[in-house]
């Protein structure tokens, strides 16, 4: 979080994390498509030639004034491919909250677990204690014929203590609920820290 008293802005950073092709960029594309263009930035994607995320995607939202300050919410994704390990850690720096986008397909269990553990490791190395940092788990691609139920995925990831949301991000289902949940978590966390 960064408060700029001169511009009267409160800036928050949320990172979408998860295995390759789980739908992180799709979440941002859906948000970009459904927000008034005057209240958001363009969607910036640093991609490879194969249209895969190389470094990050970025989108900024500007909310109406709250308590006299204008909230600006910066949304980032990390590159999901295993090769970009170092980049993922960099994008997590300064995060106020994380959305973990899991792929619900039964063939992606190991990828989800690896990515979850990888995220936890990076959060610890960045002094972002995942016991206090707001985390929302989104079980995406629930429309797949081999989609696993939420309870099973929660057990596999051992993430029962975090709020989880079912989604089909490519049609926008669950995307806004996830965004609202993580922002609620972030602001509640800030409130508890500053009271």
């Amino acid at each position, binding site marked *: *979080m*960064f*408060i*700029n*008293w*001169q*511009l009267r*802005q*409160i*800036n928050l*950073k949320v990172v979408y994390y998860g295995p390759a092709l789980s739908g992180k960029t799709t979440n941002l594309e859906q948000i970009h498509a*459904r*927000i*008034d263009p005057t*209240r*958001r*930035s*363009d969607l*910036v994607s*640093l991609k490879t030639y194969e249209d895969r995320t190389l*470094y*990050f995607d*970025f989108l*900024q*939202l500007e*909310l*109406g004034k*709250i*308590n*006299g*300050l204008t*909230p*600006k919410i*910066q949304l*980032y994704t990390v590159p999901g491919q295993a090769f970009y390990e*170092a*980049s993922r850690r*960099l*994008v997590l*720096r*300064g*995060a*106020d909250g994380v959305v973990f986008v899991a792929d619900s397909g039964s063939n992606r269990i190991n990828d989800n677990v690896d990515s979850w553990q990888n995220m936890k490791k990076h959060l610890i190395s960045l*002094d*972002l204690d995942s016991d*206090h940092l707001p985390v929302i788990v989104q079980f995406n691609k629930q429309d797949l014929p081999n989609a696993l139920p939420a309870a099973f995925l929660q057990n596999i990831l051992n993430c029962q203590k975090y709020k989880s949301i079912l989604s089909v991000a490519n049609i*926008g289902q669950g995307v*806004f609920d996830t*965004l*609202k949940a993580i*922002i*609620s978590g972030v*602001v*509640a966390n*800030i*409130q508890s*820290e*500053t*009271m």
Partner: protein
Amino acid sequence: MVDQTGESTKIRLRGGLSLTVVQINQIQKSINRLMEIVPAQYILLVDTSGQLVTTAGDKSMIDSSILGSLIAADLAASQEIARLTGEFQEYQMILREGDRTNIIISEAGKHLAFLVLFSRETPIGWARKLIQNAAKEIGAFVVQPVVATQEEQISPTEGNLPGLFNDALDQLWKD
């Protein structure tokens, strides 16, 4: 506000940064002076996660929020490269040479980073030295103790904040 230990003295933030109007005015003066003596065409100052602090010069065609995120990312990647190769140092700089203008991206202490765009006719060594001096000055402004005004002592996080944010998000969203 951040004191000399890097801890917030007004609003307790674990990982955040709060800059008062006094601090930002000091930073702005330093940026304006740098603009004049380099001379630079444009300067953009962000925090290390890419959030806008202030600008100088006219680049109204540039989206400063996008540029800010890229400055932070560029610097973070460069720092990591330096760390992996054992060449990490404070006040790291990145130089990009263009046909008409050059760009230097520099850290300004632990919390801030800035981009300076200047003519190719300006000697790089001259610009580099001035930017390094300004970076140290700006970095010091952030960690110096500053008395917050009465207004700045009011917590912006009072009330039903999650509910207020939810309402604000609802107003933005169209199904």
